[in-house]
């Protein structure tokens, strides 16, 4: 007997439970909006600054190290362990002055940490580059989402695209909430994480919408509410299967693929979960309010099987 994640004849009333799920969605969206005002923990990619990743030959005393680095008067210094106690990440703001002032700052930090330590990464990002990166990334994301929505509007009806937008906005806001309130660093890979979430969510939504469209044609007399429920239940097995395989892969990354990829996978794990939720519990029930054109409802064309040659 094969493993069955979801029994095949579920009759869950997703549409009936919409007030609960809408409330949850609104709560997450509010959390995200307030997160935006709470501010994001922008990484060096975005706000500019210096980052050093160093592998120390012995476990350092962080308190002393912090004091010594602060004594350099380079502004705020952030020291973080990455992975092991011997692996440190040191972040400093950009210094006033020209290129040489930036180089000097790095030399001073290296002198405190010890010149013969193993420097695994040293990076400097100018403020202008950082600002542009945010803008370019956001522009690319916005355009990509717009293109996808136009496609949905063309292939389906504009009402479907409208519901997809709401679900997408919800997913992005939820991730924003995560980044802001959990204080996760927001850098260029975070934008990619949001993109993956949005892409996955829209994919998921389309699969369900596709079934709704099909059932709308098949069962012209059935109430919209029942069609939505029927379609959601019919596709539930697929929704759960794909979400599970994706989450399995991501969880493997989270635990096994080292600190950088691990940090990258975490928001995607949340994003995939939220994306599945919004496809089922937000985008689809919302169709109820969209006055979908139903066409002629005189007869049900019940297709038993497709014509096969």
């Amino acid at each position, binding site marked *: 007997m094969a493993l069955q994640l979801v029994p095949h004849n579920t009759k869950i009333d997703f549409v009936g439970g919409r007030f609960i799920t809408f409330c949850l969605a609104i709560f997450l969206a509010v959390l995200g909006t307030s997160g935006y005002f709470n501010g994001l923990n922008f990484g060096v990619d975005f706000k500019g600054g210096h980052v050093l990743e160093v592998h120390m030959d012995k476990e350092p005393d962080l308190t002393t190290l912090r004091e010594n680095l602060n004594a350099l008067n380079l502004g705020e210094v952030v020291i973080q362990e990455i992975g092991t106690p011997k692996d440190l990440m040191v972040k400093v703001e950009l210094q006033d002055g020209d290129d040489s002032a930036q180089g000097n700052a790095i030399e001073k930090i290296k002198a405190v940490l010890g010149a013969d330590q193993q420097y695994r990464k040293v990076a400097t*990002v100018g403020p202008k580059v950082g600002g542009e990166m945010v803008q370019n990334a956001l522009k*690319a994301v916005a355009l990509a989402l717009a293109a996808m929505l136009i496609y949905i509007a063309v292939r389906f009806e504009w009402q479907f695209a409208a519901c997809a937008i709401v679900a997408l906005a919800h997913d992005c806001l939820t991730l924003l909430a995560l980044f802001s309130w959990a204080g996760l660093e927001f850098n260029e890979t975070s*934008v990619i994480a949001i993109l993956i979430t949005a892409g996955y969510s829209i994919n998921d939504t389309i699969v369900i919408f*596709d079934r709704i469209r099909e059932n709308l044609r098949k069962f012209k007399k059935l109430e919209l509410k029942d069609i939505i429920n029927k379609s959601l239940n019919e596709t539930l097995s697929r929704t759960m299967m794909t979400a599970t*395989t994706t989450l399995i*892969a991501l969880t493997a990354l989270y635990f096994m*693929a080292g600190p950088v990829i691990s940090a990258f*996978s975490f928001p995607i794990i949340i994003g995939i979960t939220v994306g599945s939720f919004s496809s089922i519990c937000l985008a689809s029930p919302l169709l109820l309010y969209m006055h979908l054109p139903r066409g002629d409802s005189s007869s049900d064309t019940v297709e038993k099987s497709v014509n096969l040659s």
Partner: protein
Amino acid sequence: MLQLSKMKLLIIFGTCLLGVLFALPNVLDQKTIAKLPLFLQNTVNLGLELRGGSHIQLEVDLKSAHKDYLSHIKDEVRSTLRKEQIGYTDLKLVTKDKGNVTLTLLNSNDFAKAKKVIFKIDSYITIQDLSNGNLNITFKEDALEKRNKQIIEQSIEVVRRRVDESGTKEPNIQRQGEDRIIVQLPGVEDPAEVKRMIGKTAKLTFRLVDNNAQSVNATEDGKPMGVAPQGAEYLMTTDHKGNKYFIPVRKEVKLTGDQLVDARITEDPRSGQPAVSIQFDSKGTRAFAEISKNNVNRQFAMVLDDTVISAPVFNEPITGGNAQISGRFTYKEANELSVLLRAGSLPAPLKVVEESTVGPSLGADSIQHGKQGVGIAFVLVSIFMIMSYSLFGAIANIALTFNIILLFAGLSILQATLTLPGIAGIALTIGMAVDANVLIYERIKEELRTGVKVMVAIQAGYKRAMTTILDSNFTTLLGAAVLFEFGSGPIKGFAVTLALGILISLFTALSLTKLIIYLWVRNKKNLTTLPI
């Protein structure tokens, strides 16, 4: 019954075979790869963060280049109007916005004549008559763009030559956005030296020293003590003892470093110190001979980026096109200067706006971790698929395996750069690649429940899942295309991996698994249930 055309079979198996072939070099060592035919030698291009090295982003200061050029035009206007004996006043360079040069003609009737001679200076400029003899000289809009493009291209070329001279292997230098240049130096752990070399403008000019003024000392804040005569400027230099002082140098440039064919390190025969010997091209040789003939016993200055590095006297006409620059160089400095002179001068100053250096150990660790993560993701997803769909799950896993192989083949052929998020993208592809198969299998299961025959259920499953698969994948593909077009750096790389992943999963799900399933069903007569 099912008809499988030979052609279709050939294409499907051919594609898989080619995929294996093109992905293979990625798991071979360098020596074995070198023995392969050339078209098979491509491997996935590892990003700097994975292989280690330096990444430098430079900004070309177009504004400053632009200002220099306008100031050159101003000088030309002055000398042209003087030559043509057209009276003018108030010749000014305005640096605001795009910059312009303004002047007032003493006699506004001279406008037509003035316009004619000024136009001859440069084809890029345009002149407006602002009444009362006021003239406004600006660049033509399209000319400005053309010039900016030239400056960037030329800058890239010079940077490339300088980096090549520095001995870095496989550097990657490319334009980024409007006015940026990205320099990637694999394996370089300390970019300070390369950065210094790249950043120098290295504009070498030969000018005469002004006879009507004396050298002056520097003030406390490093400015010359005195004002240079008209048409000359005070430029800094250093004497034998290392003291800084200023020499009055004519602004007129007699000859530039652009007319060199060679520059190499040599030894000053008198002092035994390192020096740089230069060789002019034929045009430069003639010009140098002319200048030295007309100015015997006069002092001239070799100026590098606003500093006089040497100011010898022409003892006799120099006709061979050879000259020696002997400043007070160390061996390293002389060598660097010769490299810079060979590579040519930058048309505009460059500024480092971003840099990062990744040590080789971090890259190796990331690859190691990435392999581990991707491998475990693959195994777990495979187990889960078999648990869920038994034999059909195993068939989907064959497709998944080819998915990864074809993805690596595609990345190798396209020479796309694999970055850290790219590795995560591969793992994600593993999770999502089974989606098409899941959609089909779920449909087949639904059809089976309506009680139709096995073969009918399979065909209906494929047919009905098709629109969904195409719609959902096309949307994502569209998104990836937009990201590729408008994104930069890692986002672009991610878009390539994503698009490749989608196309390949479409191929494996709609051709490969379908084929295997059909072949399997064909060999089993009288099937009543499916292992799904």
